[in-house]
Structures are given as structure tokens and as C-alpha cells.
């Protein structure tokens, strides 16, 4: 089954072409890039590399962009969806490991985990914030994971239809976990490699934003 790769991108003109090209070279040619209101050439680069590009006219956040991509993929009849980062942190070689458990009907959704797998050049501060975030998701939703903030996921059509993402920004990661629980979906963490570079670290969330994020997660947990 041909997986649809969904990539949310905001000002990723530097990396998007390489990410899409690499995916296509590995045989994944069903790629949807959602340009979340970039003010650089992200759309053009993605399109030139061979992706289907949807464009948010203004920036709404990764959660919003992902949902747009998922909705469109489902509209087009996609039966297998994979969410993938635009900044080159994810490894296209690992998509197979992510989709196999779903194709084997072992699980409804696979969640990439850098802590089960590998995270190269992971700064201590970010490591701490990720660990705290994952624990926080456990407190809010009762699901124990090793890495809840990982954007590398694979979903069956059924799970994608059931999971409702209402968060616009980074709290969508926790919300997805909550949706897994609400819909009683089977989930499985799969080891993946996250390669941090100066570029991708620069694009990551600031530790200082974590507190506001935490509050938004709490509110989202109780008010939807």
C-alpha cells in the first residue's frame, strides 16, 4: 500500500527540496506539503521537487497544518498516512518500520520515539524539555510513552478519520495522544533516528515557550 507522506512546513525553503527529493528517491511519491504561511520559497521548492502543495495564506501552526494535510489526504482516499518533518530531522529509511505494524494490522497508529531509537546531537536542555513534556502528556492523558513530542507518525485511514486535531500549535502532539485514548486506538512506539543539525535546532521550540505550551495543553485537555 502506498503511504501518503504529509509534511507541515513553515519557512523551510532551505531543507524542503532535499526532504521531498529524498522521499521520492526512496519510492514515496505521494507527498503532501502544507505550506503554513511561509514568506519564503517553501511552496515553490516543494512543488518543484514533486510534492502536492497546499498553502495556508497565513501561519496557523504545525497542528493546524498537519490537520489540513491529513484532511486533504483523506479526501483523496489515502489509506495510509505518515507525518514527517520538513527540516530534515527524520529519516526516510525508517518509514518502512513505521508503516509495517499498521499494514500487519498489529496496530492502528505508530509513534516514532527518539528515546527508543537515536537522537544525535541532542542538547541537554531540549532532552529535558522533551522528557518533561512526555511525562506531562502522561499526567494529562494517562498514556505512558517514551517520546510524545515526535512528529514522525504513521496512521491507518481509520485512525486518521477518528483523530480530531483542534489545536493549532505544538499542543497538538498531546492532543493526538488524547485522541488515541478517547478512540481506544491501538498504538505502538517505534524507534526512530532524529538528526539534529544547527539548522533544525534553530527552528525548534524554545524552552521558554514550554510553560505557555504546558498551560495550553492543560486547557486543551479540559476544553475542546
Amino acid at each position, binding site marked *: 500500500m502506498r503511504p501518503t507522506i504529509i509534511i507541515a512546513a513553515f519557512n523551510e525553503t532551505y531543507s524542503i527540496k532535499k526532504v521531498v527529493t529524498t522521499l521520492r528517491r526512496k519510492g514515496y511519491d505521494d507527498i503532501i506539503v502544507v505550506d503554513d504561511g511561509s514568506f519564503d520559497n517553501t511552496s515553490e521548492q516543494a512543488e518543484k521537487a514533486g510534492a*502536492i502543495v497546499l498553502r495556508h495564506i497565513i501561519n496557523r501552526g504545525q497542528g*493546524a497544518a498537519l490537520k489540513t494535510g491529513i*484532511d486533504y489526504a483523506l479526501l483523496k482516499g489515502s489509506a495510509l498516512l505518515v507525518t514527517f518533518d520538513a527540516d530534515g530531522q527524520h529519516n526516510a529509511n525508517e518509514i518502512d518500520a513505521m508503516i509495517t505494524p499498521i499494514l500487519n494490522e498489529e496496530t492502528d497508529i505508530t509513534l516514532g520515539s527518539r528515546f527508543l531509537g537515536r537522537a544525535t546531537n541532542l542538547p541537554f536542555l531540549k532532552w529535558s524539555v522533551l522528557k518533561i513534556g512526555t511525562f506531562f502528556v502522561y499526567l494529562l492523558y494517562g498514556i505512558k510513552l517514551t517520546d510524545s513530542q515526535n512528529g514522525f507518525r504513521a496512521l491507518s485511514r481509520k485512525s486518521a478519520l477518528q483523530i480530531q486535531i483542534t489545536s493549532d500549535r505544538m499542543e497538538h502532539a498531546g492532543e493526538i495522544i488524547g485522541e488515541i485514548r478517547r478512540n481506544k486506538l491501538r498504538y505502538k512506539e517505534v524507534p526512530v533516528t532524529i538528526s539534529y543539525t544547527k539548522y533544525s535546532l534553530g527552528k525548534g521550540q524554545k524552552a521558554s515557550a514550554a510553560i505557555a505550551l504546558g498551560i495550553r495543553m492543560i486547557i486543551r485537555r479540559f476544553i475542546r
Partner: protein
Amino acid sequence: MQAIQLFFLLFLVLIYSVVIARFTKRRLSPRSFIAWSALWIGAILVSINPSLVSYVSDPLGVGRAIDFVIYSAIVLLLYLNFKTYLRQDALNRDLTKVVRSLAIREKKK
């Protein structure tokens, strides 16, 4: 009556008249109207006779009535702040729905 009481009284009556006007023009729900009326009428009565506050503050064990007024004001402000945040959040999500609709529509063309 002190000058400041009169000043506050006039100010509060003015505000409340706006509340009434909004309600009669149907720009305010009955629920909100009752809630706001309770607040502003309460404030008007207290400005006329400040010692009224002690009827509420004494049973609650608050020493000075004015302390109670301040505590209540803070709680009210926090609550209103939170409601405003929720409204903004809902607005944000509606905006995203519009942006999403545009993005998908553009693609369908």
C-alpha cells in the same frame, strides 16, 4: 454623602445604563444581562451605602469590608480574563478553519 460616593454613583449608573441599552437592543443575552445587573446594581447600592458590604464580608470572616471588595474584584477580573482567553482561542480555531478551507479549495480548482 461624600463627594466621591456621588462621583462613583453617577459613573456606575452611567455604565449600567449602557448595559440596559445593550440588552434592549438585543445585543446582550438574558443570562449575561442578569449577571451584569447583579454586579452593577450591587455596586450602585454599595456606593450609596458602603456599610452594606459588611453583610457579606462579616459572615465570611473578612476583617475589613473593603478587603472583601478588593478580593472579589480580583476574582472577578481573573474570571473575566479567562473567559476572554477562551473566546480568543475559539476565534483562533475558527480562523484556522477558514484558512484550511481556502487551502483545500485552492487545490480543488
